[in-house]
């Protein structure tokens, strides 16, 4: 088989038409699907685009910059012969870059180590290592109750006005690997506001995490379509750090909702048949090509872990964006408006939250031996208490059985003492200790998930947790 010849750049004068973010060009010779395009013109700013549909008669180009003021007939369109790439390298650590990788921090561009295509390729499932190593995020609701594991994708389901992005920033700042292995964070801001951007950049600069962090910032005022690139640029950077340099990389993306809206915008401009709520029918597959880039490889020391933030439109978890995300990711951390209003931070509702890979990342070898029992017991009593709360609203707390009444009181303590931690990092041992001190306020025979062995070890040896 002869090697694919690298086609040279070809230039065309004038596009046939433009619609929204799309440009339609007539009779392009050997246009390639995914080919990178430059759009220039006298008196017009330079724009970049990508071929998304090639045809003998019409080729469709998706333009990443704002198309406002674009005059298709006068544009010069260059098919570059290359697909979209990004510069990767260890020297990106510590940098703040635009959503497509241009420096934003006033420093010269990085030299980098390679240019890699941003679209990635699927990891061969037989080369995946099943994730099993704990990552400490410093957040009790995650570390204790819904443990994050290297190679996992665990989204934060937030709502408008809820501090999902703040929680993500806490994680960026506080996360560390279990045994001090090489660790880095790639933060991809997708369509976030100027205010949020400023907060993060200054926060990360002030703490000492900036040197192990790469920031990609696509702001709300940046072109919508660029949002389709930013997560992929970030993931390509992360994969390179992980699988070439053996670093454990945490990729935090905020906000996937903005990404999905950009996807819908392109689909509508192409006059595609819309799926649910106007989102394209291939959104599941498209989101999967982002989230599935998390993983651990068998013969490689690094890993890519993802914490995407999803803002639930109207707090609706059945909305297509969180719904499809939930079908791809390995669990979800759900924020609650009610907890937020009561001043609990982070306002994580542990009942609908879930980490599917938790079991693989906890226990004697990873966290503490009794982690599973501890979490199950807290969960069970909290769930019972929340149910009792509903019932108490009808029959009054006097009408409750004594066990239900105790569980009801437990709900308050659980939310205020365990889930609430302000903005302060909490280590896993502290998380476990506080959990135990809550559990030990209850009669032993109500702690049905705690085995006698665990209980004996807890109360027999040290009673430190109780007294502190």
């Amino acid at each position: 088989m002869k090697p694919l010849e690298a086609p040279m750049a070809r230039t065309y004068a004038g596009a046939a038409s433009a619609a929204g973010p799309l440009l339609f060009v007539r009779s392009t010779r050997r246009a390639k699907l995914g080919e990178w395009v430059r759009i220039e013109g006298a008196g017009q700013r330079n724009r970049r685009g990508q071929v998304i549909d090639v045809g003998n008669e019409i080729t469709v180009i998706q333009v990443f910059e704002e198309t406002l003021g674009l005059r298709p007939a006068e544009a010069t369109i260059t098919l570059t012969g290359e697909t979209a790439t990004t510069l990767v390298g260890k020297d990106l650590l510590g940098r703040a870059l635009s959503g497509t990788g241009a420096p934003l921090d006033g420093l010269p561009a990085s030299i980098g180590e390679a240019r890699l295509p941003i679209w990635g390729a699927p990891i061969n499932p037989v080369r995946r290592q099943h994730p099993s190593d704990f990552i400490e995020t410093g957040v009790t609701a995650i570390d204790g109750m819904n443990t994050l594991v290297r190679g996992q994708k665990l989204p934060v389901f937030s709502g408008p006005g809820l501090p999902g992005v703040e929680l993500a920033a806490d994680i960026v700042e506080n996360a560390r690997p279990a045994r001090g292995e090489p660790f880095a964070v790639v933060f991809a801001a997708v369509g976030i506001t100027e205010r949020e951007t400023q907060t993060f950049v200054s926060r990360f600069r002030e703490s000492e995490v900036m040197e192990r962090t790469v920031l990609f910032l696509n702001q709300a005022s940046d072109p919508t379509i660029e949002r389709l690139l930013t997560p992929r640029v970030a993931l390509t950077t992360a994969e390179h750090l992980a699988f070439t340099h053996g670093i454990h990389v945490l990729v935090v993306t905020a906000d996937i909702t903005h990404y999905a809206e950009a996807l819908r915008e392109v689909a509508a401009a192409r006059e595609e048949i819309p799926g649910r709520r106007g989102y394209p029918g291939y959104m599941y597959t498209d989101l999967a090509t982002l989230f599935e880039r998390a993983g651990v490889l068998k013969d490689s020391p690094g890993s890519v872990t993802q914490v995407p933030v999803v803002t639930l439109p109207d707090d609706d978890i059945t909305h297509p964006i969180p719904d499809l995300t939930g079908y791809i990711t390995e669990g979800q951390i759900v924020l609650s408006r009610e907890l937020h209003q009561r001043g609990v931070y982070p306002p994580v509702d542990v009942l609908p939250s879930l980490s599917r890979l938790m079991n693989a990342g906890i226990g004697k070898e990873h966290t503490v031996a009794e982690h599973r029992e501890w979490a199950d017991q807290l969960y069970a009593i909290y769930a019972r208490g929340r149910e009792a709360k509903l019932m108490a609203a009808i029959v009054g707390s006097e009408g409750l059985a004594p066990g239900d009444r105790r569980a009801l009181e437990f709900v308050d303590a659980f939310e205020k003492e365990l889930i609430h931690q302000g903005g302060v990092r909490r280590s896993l041992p502290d998380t476990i200790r506080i959990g135990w001190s809550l559990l030990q306020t209850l009669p032993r025979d109500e702690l049905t998930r705690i085995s006698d062995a665990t209980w004996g070890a807890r109360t027999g040896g040290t009673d430190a947790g109780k007294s502190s």
Partner: protein
Amino acid sequence: MTEARIIRVAGAIAEARPLGEAALYELVEVGERRLLGEVIRLQDDIATIQVFEETSGLSLEEPVRRTGSSLTTALGPGLLGSILDGVGRPLEGLADRSGDFIAPGTTLPTLDPEARWSFAPTAATGATVAGGDVLGVVEERPGIMHRVLVPPGSAGRIADIQEGSFTVSDTIATFEDGSPLSLSHPWAIRERRPMRRRLPGDRPFITGQRVFDLLFPVVEGGSVAVPGGFGTGKTVIEQSLAKYAKADVMVYIGCGERGNEMAEVLHDFGRLTDPATGRPIMDRTILIVNTSNMPVAARDASVYLGMTFAEYYRDMGYHVAILADSLSRWAEALREIAARLQEMPGEEGYPTYLANRMSRLYERAGRVESEGTPSRTGAVTFISAVSPPGGDFAEPVTQASLRVVGALWALDARLAHQRQFPAVDWDTSYSLYAEASASWFSEEGGADWRKLRAETIRLLQRDRELREIAGLVGVDALEDDDRLVLEGARIAREFLIGQNAFHPHDAFSSVSKTYHLARLLWEFMRTGTGALEQGVAFEKLDLAGVRVAFGAVKTAAPDDLDALIVEAERTIADMEVA
């Protein structure tokens, strides 16, 4: 003749011309990299092709070559234990060629061309044979005899048949007309394999999950839909069945699902042993893996590929279970491709032929008498997860499934949030196979199986009514006998239909354990009711002791089961004295 060239590419779809001579569903090689594709529409001299590999980088004017056949797989020894992608390429082989990430344009045979198999003929020279007749056997895996069949549609008198060691393409026999036979034969995956006749299902497929075996059983040859929103445990159920359920051959299709989950499957299946035979479960398993980020057209193919393997082993006289996770992703692949073809959409954007395609697929399941001699019966049981958007079952894929399946295992997010697993909603789930399988269960489990099943269902229904009342007036306002029902139902939920997929002795429940737990529950209700009738106060019953006893039986190792059952009987009999 002019070579066909690409005139359009969009997503997984390419168009090429001139290809007027091609047949529908003919396999073609697309572009310089020879990506696998399939003709799905012909209009004048333009062929529309769905491409099974990543199309990024395909350009206009690249060549398209015909292969003359449709998407075909090789059927023969060596399928068991293999791990394949959606079009049947071994994933280990792909990793050897292209490393950790999958690169498009690699051709690899499904069956190892080098492997040699020891063939023992059972048909003799001079015999006249036809499609489905057994030529001989190969021990494919320890204890698993692969019956080498005359390919459907061929017939003749055997001029020569050899015993010995052969590769899958060597000639093992020749017909008098000179045509050769080998250990393998090709089959077009979209075509169902022929059989002599369909048989009614009357033997249960033992799932090892109490909620299914007791309440919602399925027969060998049956079909089940398992819909549930995300986080309701579809995948854990599919995996538990693949690991522990009783079937000769398991075909697990990971269709459009998570890569890490597939890594877990590969990891677990590689080290687990089949409780019935003590052999590695991979010995009886074929894994088809097409994760959500792998090409969408191959997702469509993966389901037909798995079905073809299942029918092939069925034809040898085996019971094969297909576990598909998830059929929704397959349906979405159809939708995605239909949208690219600008077909008129039906409900929710799915193509109008969705229900038709789905029922044709489900109907490939069944218990059958195979073609050929000696006479054999085999079965394909089809269990497919469905992922309804938002957990709402009123969507096309769930609804189209319900029109054809014999059982519904409905998973419920509320139960999953309560950590009730398997999160099977006993109010909406059903099985049309309950009566057909009841005789078998009565013989193998216990004579009163039907009664216990009915009593358990009645208890759960009564519980639901009572909980609605208790929600209004409080539990303390209920009568003692109603509180006993609540307690019995709680035991049913936690110890009878609740099952821990990660506990070594609870992950699989033998028919005997299922029976005894149901019987103990009935004993508990009977004894408790008796005590209350004699004036014992509800508070005086030693419920904590009973719960401990149930828990012990639930997680009992097989060797301790009998003793713990006796102990539980004693605890129940003595519960009022505490």
